[in-house]
């Protein structure tokens, strides 16, 4: 058994071989450049944190978290998302600063879950958090940046669904549902179970018109006209304001030129309890899972002792790579510019030449033994180099 284990990697992990790792790094570099252009600064947090941090942040401690103990028997958890650690970091380390913070990260996330397309138990996310403003314009910036980032990564065929936590919350408050009833409805919406949702809503003693909206929630997907129509039909402030908020965000998104990617889905509430406002997910054809997701979480920071509205998103690097591969739009071949080979006795000269070329920014490989020119040409190909410099 031990012999077998030596040759394997644990469930849900994988190696990135030459080429794959390089292509991923390149994408991450491009994303980092893009985030910087939008005024975002990179941050890093520890790979593992105290379990209590995640419990407090509201991202929920589930069976999915990978937990272990430190020397003092305190429970640690490998970060299962980046939003909570970032909120913790800003609240505790940057708490005095009143200005708006634009932060980004590229980090590995750990969740013990069934592996899916492009998602292992360890996977890579790039994301941003925009903290310190409740303005709809900030949500629009985050949406527009998500579009720009997906484009930077090389995707062009994608669509973003936008929802709002307040819409469903307002509806459920309006009809005075009990905590348990609310939980049940939320669960069915999260499970995307339109059949049981409609059946369950029909058993509740609430206004018939609202039954129609609540029971058919999963079908409330359309453009901004749907929002305007719904505004006339909802009679509670919270839902109305949620719709108004989405319309404002959409108006800014138009200015950013990204509105064509957006449509609304009022059943979108996302699987994290910390969201409080606009939420969104991005999808691309041929990939059965969302490639990007995010939203507004105004109350999480107060759990860490600092009131601070915030919004942001994360995108799954591995899933995006998979989507690009399926579009045959992703090259993971490693290549170099120059192969330096040399005739016997010219090794020193070859080293000098290689260093000159590198100083000029070329990617250079050098031979370790002498060879004739024909062998050198053969070696150039085998080493994935585009040209040969032969020193004699």
């Amino acid at each position: 058994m031990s012999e077998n284990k030596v040759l394997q990697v644990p469930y849900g992990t994988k190696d990135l071989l030459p080429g794959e790792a390089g292509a991923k790094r390149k994408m991450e570099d491009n994303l980092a450049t893009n985030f910087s252009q939008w005024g975002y600064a990179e941050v890093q947090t520890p790979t593992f944190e105290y379990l209590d941090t995640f419990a407090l942040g509201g991202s929920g401690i589930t069976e999915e978290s990978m937990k272990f103990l430190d020397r003092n028997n305190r429970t640690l958890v490998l970060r299962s998302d980046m939003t909570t650690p970032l909120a913790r970091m800003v609240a505790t380390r940057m708490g005095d600063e009143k200005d708006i913070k634009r932060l980004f990260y590229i980090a590995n996330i750990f969740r013990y879950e069934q592996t899916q397309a492009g998602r292992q138990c360890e996977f890579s996310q790039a994301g941003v958090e925009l903290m310190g403003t409740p303005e709809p314009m900030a949500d629009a910036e985050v949406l527009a940046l998500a579009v720009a980032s997906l484009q930077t990564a090389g995707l062009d065929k994608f669509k973003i669904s936008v929802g709002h936590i307040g819409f469903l919350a307002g509806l459920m408050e309006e009809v005075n549902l009990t905590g348990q009833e609310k939980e049940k409805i939320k669960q069915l919406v999260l499970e995307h179970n339109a059949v049981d949702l409609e059946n369950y809503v029909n058993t509740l003693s609430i206004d018939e018109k609202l039954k129609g909206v609540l029971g058919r929630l999963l079908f409330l997907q359309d453009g901004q006209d749907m929002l305007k129509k719904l505004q006339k039909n909802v009679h509670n402030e919270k839902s109305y304001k949620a719709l108004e908020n989405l319309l404002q965000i959409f108006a800014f998104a138009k200015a950013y030129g990204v509105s064509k990617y957006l449509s609304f889905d009022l059943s979108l509430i996302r699987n994290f309890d910390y969201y409080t406002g606009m939420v969104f997910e991005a999808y691309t054809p041929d990939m059965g899972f969302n490639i990007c997701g995010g939203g507004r979480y105004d109350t999480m920071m107060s759990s860490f002792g600092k009131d601070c509205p915030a919004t942001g998103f994360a995108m799954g690097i591995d899933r995006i790579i998979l989507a690009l591969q399926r579009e045959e739009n992703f090259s993971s071949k490693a290549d170099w510019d120059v192969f330096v080979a040399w005739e016997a006795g010219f090794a020193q000269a070859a080293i000098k030449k290689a260093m000159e070329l590198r100083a000029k920014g070329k990617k250079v490989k050098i031979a370790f033994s002498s060879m004739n020119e024909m062998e050198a040409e053969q070696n150039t190909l085998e080493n994935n180099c585009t040209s040969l410099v032969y020193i004699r």
Partner: protein
Amino acid sequence: MPYLTIALPKGKLFAKSVELLAKVGYSADNVVEDSRKLVITNEVSKVKFIIVKTMDLPTYVEYGAADIGIIGKDVLLEEKKDIYELLDMKYGKCRLMVAVPKAKKRAKLTDYAHLRVATKYPNCASEFFNKAGMQMTIIKLNGSIELAPIVGLSEMIVDIVETGTTLKENNLEEIAVVQPATARLIANKVSFKLQFNRIKKLVEDLQKVMVEENIK
């Protein structure tokens, strides 16, 4: 317009599913259960059909290999995939139930605690017995579940029945219902958003046909 790929389950739901889909304009030549072709395409209406084993169907849809599919609720409960469950098609009525050999019937369910249960549905069975506060030994089988108590592999079974004929033939008696089930229309999470209008119309058209045909 992109293709809409529809996964159809082999077995008892197949014929009715093909018939209803054809009535709302989703058909292709030679959509038959023992089709040699693995993917059957209708170029005009941009539909592809794939015919798969029932237990695998939710997986095809979850990964987006099929955009939508028709499958029994029993399989959905067992497989617990992250998909949209859009419509109760009401046919294929059956129930997941617990049965024991007639001769070994006991007074109440909890009298069967700690026994062995043979089933094709280990998740549903575990969940059901856990809720009843019973710890059982679950034995997963892939078919001929009724055989297990006869040859002494298990004391009881959890299985799907429609009429109960097979139970009677094997001297088994139903002692509890785990869950009633019917055919459901399901959709992939992403397909439902990217092809929303088309799938929504399909749901509405199927509802109309169900009313016309009086499927309740």
